């Protein structure tokens, strides 16, 4: 499975590098939303729960753009048939797609977090950066696990652009609650987040449940 998953992942990253269809769109969307909040709220700086909420909602909505496009190349260019004809474990397709989405999210956050700090944040983020990176990493795994599953479900539907957010966002409510709650103390200027371990454990459990669930049902999704 590893060989096939790596081959599919490498192919996807190469295509993204050439077409630049997902990551730049996500980053541009996130920065635009921060600019809109900057002017819309008419405040020079934010902190605490409001800042955490804006950061996580923006990341989630930007992720929808990548989820929408995750399987499009397979559908439009016959990749599904090529993958189904090959003697590979179909779980490899899921693992590759979820990993690609995880990397897109990390690249998005490399742009979005500094932009957020610059445009909206009233506190110095640097001292809390290790904690913030840990929270985002664990949350991104869950986001990628659910996102790849929803992308596969929606890709053959005509209303893909509508189906993806309708399915994805409710499923990600626990991620946004835990992500925002874990991040809030960091954005209040506290260098150590209260209850961070508890929220990370919750996110880890969410990741495990959805990775196992997705691996279990992905084979059936590719049938017919």
């Amino acid at each position, binding site marked *: 499975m590893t060989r096939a998953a790596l081959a*599919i992942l490498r192919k996807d990253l190469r295509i993204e590098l*050439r077409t630049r269809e997902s990551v730049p769109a996500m980053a541009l969307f996130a920065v635009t939303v921060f600019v809109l909040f900057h002017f819309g709220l008419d405040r020079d700086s934010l902190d605490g729960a409001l800042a955490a909420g804006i950061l996580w909602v923006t990341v989630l909505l930007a992720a929808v753009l990548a989820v929408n496009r995750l399987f499009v190349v397979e559908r439009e*260019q016959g990749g599904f*048939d*090529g993958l189904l004809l090959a003697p*590979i474990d179909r779980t490899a397709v899921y693992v590759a797609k979820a990993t690609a989405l995880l990397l897109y999210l990390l690249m998005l956050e490399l742009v979005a977090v500094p932009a957020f700090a610059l445009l909206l944040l009233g506190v110095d983020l640097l001292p809390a950066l290790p904690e913030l990176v840990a929270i985002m990493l664990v949350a991104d795994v869950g986001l990628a696990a659910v996102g790849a599953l929803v992308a596969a479900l929606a890709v053959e539907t005509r209303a893909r652009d509508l189906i993806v957010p309708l399915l994805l966002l409710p499923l990600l409510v626990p991620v946004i609650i835990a992500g925002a709650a874990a991040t809030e103390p960091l954005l209040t200027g506290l260098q150590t987040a209260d209850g961070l371990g508890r929220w990370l454990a919750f996110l880890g459990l969410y990741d495990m449940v959805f990775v196992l669930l997705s691996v279990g049902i992905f084979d059936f999704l590719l049938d017919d």
Partner: protein
Amino acid sequence: MRVQGGQTLGVFGPNGAGKTTLLRVLAALLRPHAGSVRVAGAALPEEAWKLRGRVGYLGHDPLLYRELTARENLRFHARLHGVAPERVEALLDAVGMGRRAGDPVRQLSRGMVQRVAAARAVLHDPPLLLLDEPGAGLDPAAVELLEPLIGRASGRTRVLVTHDVDGGIAESDVALGLRAGRQVVAGAAAEMGAGRLLELYR
């Protein structure tokens, strides 16, 4: 109906007769709604997994990524099938694409794409070839070039869908005529002749 190993089954019929659907069922890409299908010893769809990697499929869609080069596409499929990279280079030369192997597929002509798709279909040396209008977009020289790979000379069992009735009959051992998803005529191609098959199109 039954097709022996090494034989070619010619499938004929007007547009919408179900020729491509039949190929997709044989490739285990679609589930049959009725009847039973056994391909290379695998009962479909229950044993579809047995068939993976044993079928070469050359359909309307070349199954190539437009942003990747011809070489990158073949190397990707080679990795999925566990085929050595040396075979990719040999096949690119065999289909006359050695010099354009570094070009993205979106920059290639229809005929060139079809040649790369043919190389992709035989990359893993499959015993069974499913061919849907394999000559589409190819000039006579290219058809000749592909003959050892996907033609009768390849020695593989083939299912060949074509609208060229005379050419298809000459290539086939067994012929099947379809109309509206149903078998209308079937039998030895040499005995059937083109006349009965041409009636399908009227």
